[in-house]
């Protein structure tokens, strides 16, 4: 029996096991929407397409599965671009379906026509314009396959309206075969043995773990390696949660807002084992002085990441999971004859000494509420058992520094692109995936206003996301730079004209709380987290608190400004 393109699309989604997609309709996708009620795929109607793509991304980060979003042509499609670039920068698997004008009108500046394939070419892993309904099923199959394999990423499929209406025989391909794309990346065993040799020789080894460890699901292998071989671990923002945040070997984040211990360890280590991390400039600081004493081993599934920013002595192109598993297998045999703990003791002591000397801290010396204190309380109350999303700015850095992530996929944050407005819709996606979990968006008063319209979506879909606004009345992170490097010229960063967030929450049918005194922080958070609907907690924090430590842009990691 022949099906229409729209029907075929939904059948494909069912075959892929998609249970939910986030979207917003329009003329160019109305045929697809016509079929949604007849399928098993749930559709969540957002209020802005940026919300849909971030929600799909949050769903993907929280579950490790592919997130899906569906939008119309033209403005619907362009509204997703920021979210696509966000997912691309952090290698998150999402598939975006966009409507397109009928093929006969493509290229004619038709109503709501935009070349979304052209626009998103540089920020998708791959994208397609479906030109023949007979190619549709194969294209969707490929899109999901590309999104989740190799270095994951967003894949866009543009669907002309007439394709959605045409008939074709439906057959979902069993397998994907693309002669040009062969992503299985097993490690080269010779290189693995070389790494083990280096590990044995090293007196001061350090693991630098990134988002790739989380995406590849290799946190257990990483944790085994760190703990068994007694190697201190530092992490990128994206890697938080891969190694237990409360373990004594964990040094916290490195880089611009990294810990003193992590940055000193990088500076002093003799072997740096980089896993699924890409030496972003926020991590390395001044490249020439990064890890000056170390032999660098770099494991990454994407060869373009290797030798891009720093020169690496031992490159290892492989998926982190088989690579770390191979390292484990190769070192397991050494445990009887080789005393890793004793060998690294001096170094571990030294590193832990640094951590004691300059722990992550803040001066709690005012009447006012310190934002770091709020994050600490959130950690205490949740005992670390929540999914935390963040916006971008100081709130994001404090959420990274003062909350301990013990499990992967529990921190959803826009690392690579730094997208304000990401956190709340991402939290929404995660909450849809885990209805019973506590999902908290740690927000700034600036960022939260970028996708606040999704309040309506969470309320009517009963997604009880908790938003905690660290409200400093400023675009705080930019203000911090202005304070430190631009002689306090606070141009365009004061945001004290703001809506009444409590009333705003209530207007949407959510609950609102405001906290202005330190003594009420814990109590109110506890209460808010118990409410069985979406909540905004507007916490008025110290207005000019800064994020420390801080390595000024372009300085060496050791040139830290401390509290």
């Amino acid at each position, binding site marked *: 029996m022949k099906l229409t393109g729209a029907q075929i699309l939904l059948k494909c989604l069912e075959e892929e096991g998609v249970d939910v997609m986030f979207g917003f309709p329009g003329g160019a996708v109305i045929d697809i929407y016509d079929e949604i009620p007849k399928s098993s795929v749930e559709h969540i109607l957002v209020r802005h397409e940026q919300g849909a793509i971030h929600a799909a991304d949050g769903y993907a980060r929280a579950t490790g599965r592919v997130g899906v979003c569906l939008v119309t042509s033209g403005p619907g499609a362009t509204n997703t671009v920021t979210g696509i670039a966000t997912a691309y920068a952090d290698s998150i698997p999402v598939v975006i379906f966009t409507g397109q004008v009928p093929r006969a009108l493509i290229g004619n500046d038709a109503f709501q026509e935009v070349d979304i*394939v*052209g626009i998103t*070419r*540089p920020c998708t*892993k*791959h994208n397609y*314009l479906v*030109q023949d309904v007979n190619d549709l099923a194969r294209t969707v199959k490929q899109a999901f396959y*590309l999104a989740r394999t190799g270095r994951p990423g967003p894949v866009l499929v543009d669907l002309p309206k007439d394709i959605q209406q045409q008939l074709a025989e439906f057959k979902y391909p069993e397998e994907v075969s*693309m*002669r*040009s*794309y062969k992503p299985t990346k097993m490690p080269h065993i010779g290189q693995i043995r070389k790494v083990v040799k280096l590990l044995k020789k090293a007196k001061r080894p350090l693991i630098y773990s990134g988002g790739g460890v989380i995406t590849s699901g290799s946190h257990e292998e990483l944790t085994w390696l760190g703990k068994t071989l007694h190697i201190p671990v530092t992490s990128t923002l994206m890697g938080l949660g891969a190694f237990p945040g409360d373990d004594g070997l964990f040094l916290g984040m490195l880089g611009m807002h990294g810990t003193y211990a992590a940055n000193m360890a990088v500076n002093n280590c003799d072997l740096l084992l980089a896993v699924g991390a890409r030496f972003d400039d926020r991590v390395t600081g001044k490249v020439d002085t990064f890890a000056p004493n170390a032999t660098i081993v770099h494991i990454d599934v*994407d*060869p*373009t990441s290797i*030798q*891009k920013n720093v020169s690496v002595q031992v490159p290892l192109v492989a998926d982190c999971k088989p690579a770390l598993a191979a390292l484990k297998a190769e070192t397991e045999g050494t445990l009887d004859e080789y005393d890793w703990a004793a060998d690294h003791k001096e170094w571990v002591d030294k590193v832990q000494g640094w951590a004691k000397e300059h722990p992550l801290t803040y001066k709690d010396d005012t009447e006012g509420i310190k934002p770091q204190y709020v994050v600490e309380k959130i950690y205490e109350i949740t005992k670390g058992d929540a999914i935390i999303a963040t916006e971008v700015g100081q709130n994001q850095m404090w959420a990274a520094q003062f909350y301990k992530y013990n499990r992967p996929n529990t921190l959803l944050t826009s690392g690579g692109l730094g997208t304000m407005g990401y956190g709340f819709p991402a939290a929404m996606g995660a909450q849809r995936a885990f209805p019973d979990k506590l999902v908290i968006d740690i927000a700034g008063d600036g960022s939260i206003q970028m996708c606040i319209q999704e309040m309506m979506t969470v309320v009517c879909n009963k997604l009880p996301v908790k938003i905690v606004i660290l409200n400093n009345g400023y675009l705080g992170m930019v203000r911090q730079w202005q304070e430190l490097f631009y002689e306090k010229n606070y141009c365009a960063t004061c945001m004290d004209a703001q809506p009444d967030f409590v009333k705003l929450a209530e207007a949407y049918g959510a609950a609102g709380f405001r906290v202005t005194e330190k003594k009420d922080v814990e109590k109110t958070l506890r209460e808010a987290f118990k409410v069985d609907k979406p909540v905004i907690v507007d916490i008025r924090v110290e207005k000019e608190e800064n994020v420390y430590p801080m390595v000024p842009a372009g300085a060496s990691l050791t040139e830290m400004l401390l509290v």
Partner: protein
Amino acid sequence: MSKHTLSVMVENEPGVLSRVAGLFSGRGFNIYSLNVAPTLEKGVSLMTIVAEGDDAIVEQIVKQLRKLVPTIKVKDLTELKSVEREMVLLKVNAEDSKRAEILRIVDIFRCKVVDVSVDELTIEVTGDQGKIGALVNLLTRFGIKEIARTGNVAMRRSMQIDL
């Protein structure tokens, strides 16, 4: 900075040229010349790209090209022994008094005259960059009115002999 000749085999699908070109422009790399045409294999095209950059840049380009989903194979021919050829059409001023000399050069360079008029000759030449550079040099003094170049095509040598 040096010139590298890259031979890139790609799936011949819509948008592939712009994917490749976009990769260069998006990263601020410069393309010196680019030539695309189908190969013997159905659905596969061969691009010959001459790009400029230092070794680190070229290494990135090659890796990025390999990462593109429709890319089947990338070779940097600069390090391998290869044959490189470009075809060029030149329209040269050729009044009666100069004509004989121009024809002599055409002969020496084994070019072909493909169009003639009272005061112009159009010459077709095939060769590597060195030969073409030399010819252009020699003809400049007569006045080159138009030039059309294909950009390099290149192939790895099977035997290390230059014929």
